[in-house]
Structures are given as C-alpha cells and as structure tokens.
C-alpha cells in the first residue's frame, strides 16, 4: 500500500510540474500563479476525496493513495513559502501577504466546496 501511495505521489508531483509550467507560460500576474492554481485545485480535489470517503466507509486505502499520495505530491507547501519569502525579500511585502492570504482563503473555500460536493 505504501509503495502504491508513494508512486501516486510521484505522479502527483509530475502533474504539479506540468500544470505549473503550463500556467507560468500564460500568466501575466504580478506574482507566481502556478503554485496557487495547483494548491487550490489540490484542496478542492482532496475535499472531494475526503467527502467521498465519508460516505463510502471501508475505502480507506483509496483515500490514502489519492489523498496522502497523489494530492499530497501534487500540492506543495514549500514552494508557496519560498515564493512568499522571495516577494518579501524583494521588498514587496504587500504582494507577499496577498499571495499567502489568497492561497489560504481560496484553498480553504475549495476544500469546503470539495467536501460539500461529494458528501451530500
């Protein structure tokens, strides 16, 4: 199980790289948008997986492989922190605060939305 979970995580990380590269090529935002898109979609999907698992007991394995593995590998906290720190060190404190707050708020709203979609 843990092997499957880790391999799903690798697939998630490669998906993050692909989405981030795709978004970065099209973005003209004043701060990096790729990680924001990745993390918010990850929260939506994890909410959906957790909600689904609540209504489908006995599928803890699916939840672990998709939630801890794939979506854990797809989302990233460290890159978000580095992006915030770089904005801060460049003297763009307001952009750093906005970047962190928008990601947190959008991530939480997405998580709740995902839960709501599958656990009704």
């Amino acid at each position, binding site marked *: 199980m843990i092997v499957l979970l880790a391999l799903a995580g690798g697939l998630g990380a*490669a998906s993050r790289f692909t989405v981030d590269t795709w978004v970065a090529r099209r973005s003209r935002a004043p701060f990096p948008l790729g990680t924001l898109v990745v993390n918010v979609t990850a929260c939506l999907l994890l909410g959906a997986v957790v909600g689904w698992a609540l209504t489908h007991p006995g599928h803890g394995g699916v939840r672990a492989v998709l939630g801890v593995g794939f979506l854990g590998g797809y989302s990233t*906290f460290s890159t978000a*922190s580095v992006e915030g720190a770089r904005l801060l060190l460049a003297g763009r404190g307001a952009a750093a605060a906005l970047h962190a707050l928008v990601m947190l708020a959008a991530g939480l709203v997405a998580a709740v939305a995902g839960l709501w979609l599958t656990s009704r």
Partner: protein
Amino acid sequence: MAALTPPGHSGAPSSPLPDALALPAAAALVAAGGTVGVLIRALLAQSSAPAAGAWPWTTFGINVVGSLLLGGLLAVLQRGPDVGRRRVVRLGLGTGVLGGFTTYSTFALEVEQLVADGHAVVGAAYAAASVVLGIAAAGAAIVTVGHVLDRRPARTAVDDAPGDGS
C-alpha cells in the same frame, strides 16, 4: 540524466522557460523525486495521526522544515544558471522531493477539520503559524545561505555546470 542538459545554443540563462524538448525528462525527474518525498511524509504521518482538536504537529513540522530546506537549496542553486546539473538537482530534489514532501492540501483539510469540529481558534492559529513560519523559514534559509556563500572565496566559477558553453 545527461539527456537533461540543454543543447549548447539554448543555454541562455535569460530564458525563464525550460527547454520544451526536455519537458518529459524533467517531469520524470520530478516524479522520481516526488515519490521519495511523499514516501518520507507518509511514513512520518503513519506513526502519528493527530487526535481530534489537537495541533497537527506532523504536517506542521513537515511543511516548515520543507520550506527551510527548499529555501536553502534554491539559494545555493541560484548561484549559477539553471541548466545542466543545477537544473537536475533543482527539479529532482527541489520540485520533486521537497515539493512532494510538503503538502498544502492536507494542511488545508486539517484547518477545515479543526474549525468544523469546533476548534476554530486552534484551526486559525495552525493556519497562521504554518504560513508565517513557512515563509520565515524559507526567507531565513535564503538569507543565511546567501551570506555564507558570499563569504567563501569565489571558486564557483570552476564547478559551474559543465556543457552550458557560451
């Protein structure tokens, strides 16, 4: 992994876009690193599931330490152009291992769970502390590594990525 070294003419460090031809190889490198990072996080999380209403220490520690390590790693790598060996290490260790090791989705669901279970104060404190300490850890690592490398005699010109020619 030498296949990841971009061809000589495209080695211009001014281009922010990765070489399109190298994308599948780069994604494979990220996947390999991500597998390792996710495995370490899963093993750490397996041994300590947080009780209801309790501070999620495992994810908290993983995210802050991961932010610190990624800040330090990127500060070292940015001493030279993002090609050749530097790009391999950035994608494999940074985007792969550390990106997969840390998690935003689990963090967000933990915050939601704390709030939904009636521990709104703990949830808000956990969210704020994770984000603020993550940025502080990454920033401290970037500044510290920068200072340390500035003090060392300049020998980086010798071991700069081979093959990036002009």
